[in-house]
């Protein structure tokens, strides 16, 4: 490392604290300071680049804990699926492949609008951020509405584990549906958190708080949103597509 002050390894030359133009409303850098600094630069960081790198790294460390959190559920899925393969195929038959596929597409669209919102912040487009964040929130809501109708149909058809579970079905299928509800339920909870997060980011973007120099909150909220998308990318084939071999609607 050429410069010990930047342990996160920024490219050489990016280390000098740049003199940033002060954001409107701040009197920072108007003189008095020997070294003007960006008003969004926290004191414990050397440069805006280092601050962004630290935020990104910190968010990834959190996301790794999320990987482990969902990993435990996937582990349970693998164990019970190897023990009761038939119950898994049978249970998967009761899930609606088209609604699951629709939701996969909805989440992929929302990931596109999310990445475009981050890009809008990077190029300093306030309108771009607002439009794409609203679209992301709307698509996330569509996902949850579709999920609601799926859950409602499971309750109607007595597919919820417990005393009211359809007695004509193998008992082991309750294990499949337990994992289905826990995994998709926790995923949906993450979606709700993501939507709230996006609403907060939307307000901040509305106030014009982000621009090419500083967009860390949009960036790391985007990482969270994409992570939740990735979880669904695995849940969809593992839960919905097992019982599809008999053809659609089987």
């Amino acid at each position: 490392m050429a410069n010990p002050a930047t342990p996160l390894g920024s490219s050489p030359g990016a280390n000098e604290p740049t003199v940033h133009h002060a954001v409107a409303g701040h009197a920072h850098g108007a003189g008095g300071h020997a070294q003007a600094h960006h008003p969004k630069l926290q004191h414990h960081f050397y440069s805006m680049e280092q601050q962004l790198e630290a935020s990104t790294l910190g968010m990834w460390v959190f996301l790794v804990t999320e990987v482990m959190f969902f990993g435990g559920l996937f582990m349970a899925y693998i164990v019970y699926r190897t023990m009761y393969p038939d119950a898994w195929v049978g249970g998967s038959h009761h899930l609606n492949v088209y609604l699951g596929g629709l939701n996969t597409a909805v989440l992929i669209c929302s990931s596109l609008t999310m990445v475009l919102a981050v890009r809008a912040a990077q190029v300093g487009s306030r309108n771009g951020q607002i439009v794409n964040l609203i679209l992301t929130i709307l698509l996330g809501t569509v996902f949850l509405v579709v999920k609601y109708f799926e859950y409602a149909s499971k309750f109607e058809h007595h597919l919820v584990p417990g005393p009211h579970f359809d007695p004509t079905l193998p008992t082991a299928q309750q294990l499949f549906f337990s994992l289905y509800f826990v995994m998709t339920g926790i995923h949906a909870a993450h979606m709700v958190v993501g939507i709230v997060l996006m609403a907060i980011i939307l307000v901040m973007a509305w106030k014009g708080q982000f621009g090419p120099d500083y967009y860390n909150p949009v960036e790391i909220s985007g990482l969270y949103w994409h992570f939740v998308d990735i979880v669904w990318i695995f849940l969809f084939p593992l839960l919905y597509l097992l019982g599809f071999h008999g053809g659609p609607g089987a």
Partner: protein
Amino acid sequence: MSTAHIGTVRLYVTVFAALLFFTLITVWVAGHDFGWLNTPVALGIAVTKASLVVIFFMGVRYNTPLTKVVVIAGFFWLFILFGLGMMDYVSRPWLGVPGR
């Protein structure tokens, strides 16, 4: 000014189209029976999609080496969980251990 890499709209739309394409493929493939290959094929497509999201949408490609190591290590530990976990569960019936 920030030195962060800014991806082009064209790149993001291409990745988006690829993700939708792989979603259609995974549904189409599920309509065919490849025997024991069913799950590996479905997982292969899912891993490809997830990699596209991580590398391009999450921008890990342009992150610092330290962040890349953390990301790769995170998924590596997930495979340790699955690997060691299944070593236990798969081998239990071989030994006739009660409690399975």
